[in-house]
């Protein structure tokens, strides 16, 4: 389980995870807006 508050390394990996999730959400919303 990733604990971003335990070390800098885990905080960095949490950032990468958030960037990935944000990219997916943006892609889904923009595609949905384009289609509907």
């Amino acid at each position, binding site marked *: 389980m990733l604990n971003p508050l335990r070390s800098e*390394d885990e905080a960095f990996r949490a950032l990468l995870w958030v960037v990935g999730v944000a990219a997916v959400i943006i892609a889904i919303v923009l595609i949905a807006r384009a289609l509907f």
Partner: protein
Amino acid sequence: MEAGAMSAGAAVHDEHHHGPPPANRSSRVEPQLLGMLLFIISEIMVFGAFFTAYFFIRVVAGDQWFPVRGHALPVAVAAFNTAILLSSSLTMHWAQTSIKNGNRFGLKAGILSTFLLGSTFLFVQINEYIHIGFAPHDFAQASVFFGLTGLHGAHVFIGLTLLAMVTVRSWRGHYTPAEHRGVEVPGIYWHFVDIMWVVVYTSVYVL
């Protein structure tokens, strides 16, 4: 020996210890890490309050988001700024990894780059505020925009203050592979500032 001396109330004279007596530890978590942990949790609550205002305006009240009254947000400029801040997290990670492996050049170059990139982000943001064309009191969406981005900008400033100290100390030869908490803890804070920006940018500028 430590516990006995403290319970007796006697001053502990330790020839190897400099400064005030060590603080009482009641947690298994290191004090420095615990302090940053509690601070970041409180910061998440503060940002949560501002996001609640955003949510209320946009979802509950159903108000139109930008463009409002002919004013649009500079999404491209903010995207460039996002790239800068993400790069600064990369350099921060480079600095931290370097000192863990005893690479002093990597530490110094990484931490200085992080500070410069963070400063660039703040400079671009301030410039954006100057040219954006509306004020916080003009309409509700503007208040939320300046509130969220301004709150984040204040956190970037705090982070830059921490990074300035780490940069000076790094260039003075401080920190070792065994003892570099002074790099690690500001590093955790900086990554959280970056995480908050990704959330702010996604919700305010993109969606």
